[in-house]
């Protein structure tokens, strides 16, 4: 899959993401500046983590209204793949590509630590190299990752099987203690109905090398590279 990474001013995990994508695909992703509007030739558009526009006002709010986002909308509407991680997830939500909102962590503190994600379904391109109900480790690094949506939206997400990952214990139990940021129903990531747009808070791209503490995130990038 030919991948591109969208760079907004203030984004800071684009290098991590590029390393993870290149490691799996053998090909450097294209870096797309936020003022560009042409995403043609890309199969996968990635919005990485960071602090777009400083996360001032609301995380992702200003980036979501940048020129490139119309092109991201169009790409998604054409059935293209989109991955938004951390700030990227916040941007997708602010742009209305995914439902809900990401509120301040329940602890009101920035959380930088490993967490475990339970795979809710594995019949998607993103999760195809994981097993359903398997847990994997990812790096959490955010101040506003507390997923929120109203009950009707949540019921629809659950009903249509659009919850991608939930915060869990290493053994795969979804408990309040494992839900570090307070997300509603422990939701860590969600899909669009066509399962081609994924937004998630923790960083699989920071665990793709045992030297850096593990390679739990690598299957996600391997799967994207092979698709």
């Amino acid at each position, binding site marked *: 899959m030919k991948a591109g990474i969208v760079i907004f001013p203030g984004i*800071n995990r684009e290098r991590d993401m590029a390393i993870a994508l290149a490691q799996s695909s053998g090909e450097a992703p294209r870096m797309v500046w936020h003022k560009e509007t042409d995403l043609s030739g890309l199969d996968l558009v990635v919005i990485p983590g*960071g602090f777009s526009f400083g996360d001032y006002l609301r995380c992702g709010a200003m980036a979501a209204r940048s020129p490139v986002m119309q092109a991201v909308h169009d790409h998604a509407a054409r059935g293209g793949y989109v991955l938004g991680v951390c700030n990227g997830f916040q941007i997708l939500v602010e742009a209305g590509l995914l439902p809900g909102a990401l509120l301040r962590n329940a602890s009101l503190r*920035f959380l930088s*630590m490993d967490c475990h994600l339970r795979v809710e379904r594995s019949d998607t391109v993103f999760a195809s190299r994981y097993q359903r109900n398997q847990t994997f480790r990812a790096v959490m690094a955010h101040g506003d990752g507390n997923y929120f949506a109203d009950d009707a939206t949540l019921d629809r997400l659950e009903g249509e099987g659009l919850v991608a990952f939930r915060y869990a214990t290493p053994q795969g139990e979804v408990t309040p203690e494992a839900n570090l940021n307070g997300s509603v129903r422990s939701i860590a990531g969600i899909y669009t109905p066509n399962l081609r747009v994924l937004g998630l808070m923790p960083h699989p791209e920071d665990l*793709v090398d045992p*030297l850096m503490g593990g390679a739990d995130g690598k299957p996600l990038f391997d799967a994207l590279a092979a698709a």
Partner: protein
Amino acid sequence: MAREVNQQLAREFGLSAEEYGRVLEIMGRTPSFTELGIFSVMWSEHCSYKSSRVWLKQLPTKAPWVIHGPGENAGVVDIGDGLAAVFKMESHNHPSFIEPYQGAATGVGGILRDVFTMGARPVANLNALRFGRPENPRTKRVVDGVVRGIGGYGNCVGVPTVGGEINFHRAYDGNPLVNAMTVGIASKDRIFLSAAAGIGNPVVYVGSKTGRDGIHGATMASAEFGADSEEKRPTVQVGDPFTEKLLIEACLELMATDAIVAIQDMGAAGLTSSSVEMAGKGGVGIELDIDQVPARETGMSAYEFMLSESQERMLMVLRPDREDVARAIFEKWDLDFAVIGHLTDTGRITVKHQGRIEADIPLAPLADQAPLYHRPTAETPKGEKLNPARIEDRVGLTRALQTLIACPDLCSRRWVWDQYDSSVGGQTVKRPGAADAAVVKLEGLKRAIALTTDCTPRYCAADPEAGGMQAVAEAWRNLTAVGARPLAITDNMNFGNPEKPEIMGQFAAAIRGMAAACEALDFPVVSGNVSLYNETEGRGILPTPAIGGLGVLEDAAQAVGLALPPWLDLVLLGTTKGWIGQSLWLREIAGREDGAPPPVDLAAERAVGDFVRNQILAGTVRACHDVSDGGVLVAIAEMCIASGVGARLATHPRDIPGHAFWFGEDQGRYLVAVPDGAAFIRAAEVASVPAMRIATSGGQDLTLPDGGTISVKALRDAHERFFPAWMEGG
């Protein structure tokens, strides 16, 4: 509107009568208000190092791998593969007490600029923090704000915060210390310096606009401002990490071209120090047109522009034919870009504002005739060497361990580092808590750098020379313990009022000790910062020469951590005599803060360290931890807690009392976990390094030689309790 310039005003600006006399002599007339402001900040302790310069000269600064030592914005060392590490530590103590969040945040911002101004991409931040007693209600607020501020800035700019240290002591009640360190990586033949060159070349201002922030505190008494001056003149600067991030990217993008002749960040004393230093170092003159400086507020005077400490600004000298290239890059990043002057052949700084010459000062005497003081010193009386046999152990090993591992100075700092993004960049091999030094890989290479900050202020207070030596040795040891070759240090000398002989004596002695250690360990000082007058109501802080150390590993995969794997032999290297003076056991268990601190035997230090490093690089060592605060038993417990694996301890030598053996703080020691202890000890003997098998790992309990048993889980709970309970409870 401006006040009359006279000796009285000079004093309010912080210049002594003698210093003002020198100003009159240099100028040959009464200086203008703006000129006096420029003299006062350039001759301030912060910019001129007038009390410390004579002593700092004693520090060794050279080694074959040192590319730039002190004198540039940051130190630069060759780390191989054509790359250089650029690093420095800087204090933001006073601002962090007034406004902990912004004070700490802008401290991080300032040190980042010192590093990327040299052409390096920042890859790691560390911070050395000292706070007052936890019981003091103010301390909690300061800790909360400082930690949030460091995270708020560092996380946003996307530089991982990978290490640091924290101590508590009542001496910091009214004067916490916030020392921030940044490490960047540059191509070793593309280092950018600040010496201006090229008569006629444009002087360019980039970054944020200038406001009235942080203008010289001394001038607050000036009548230049109306009754609403408090509203108008905040002394606290607010950091804007988003703009800093843009500035990093824009500067690095410009640095890939050949446009820059010289560049310097605007730090303390803002436009004044950056322009004076750039022109001064280059031996040229500089003319500034203040009307061109981007302003955030209206009606600012030349004096205010020159002294403002607004954040996120840089000054550069460009090649004239590259102005457009540079402008395009800064416009792309939505940053201000303005040509505010040019270089001249006058050797003077000339400041024009609204058609008037507001300042015109010869640069050479401003630098050469800056005050330099050889202030009187008084030696710190030495404490006696305590005999551990005469200090009764009333609690036993088990309870002492449980107390020590949970006390504020030794407990886990997880609550702190969990708020710092330590993984951004994707190169962090050893995160906080994983090893004695943080290890950060260089993108795309096998090579890694190791980083640490160290100082034990209670040792420095008891014997500043031994303490200064110990701080350097501990930094060297922490780098060694991960397998890195220590290369160089940066320092942050935090002391009280230098006009008091006993404080100046502490300073001089600490430098002596540091210099000896740097010399013996081939570990030169390449950058640093001095922060004096750290005292409130006449009471100074503990002398705190914080050391930031940097080392290199050719292969990141060779780095070892401190987590103890099961079924290994744990070997103690180095000499243990049971030094109890100034130990944490003495303070926390016996309730005494006295005695001489542990001495450092530099020859032994080097021999043991070189042996440990060679063994790590040879692949025989599975885990390593240096023995520092709390002694051997605390170090073993920390290794167990890190992995969740227990250990069974051997009995200690009869000739040393148990509490002194297990909790004494003799220097130059390491614990290593190895598969074959006997073979390892034989190798140590060959190298004349004292070694003894001290434990075997395995199980889930720590079993003490006196038969006491504590589960690792209970130890971990005790270790993790303090910070969350203190900060989040009630």
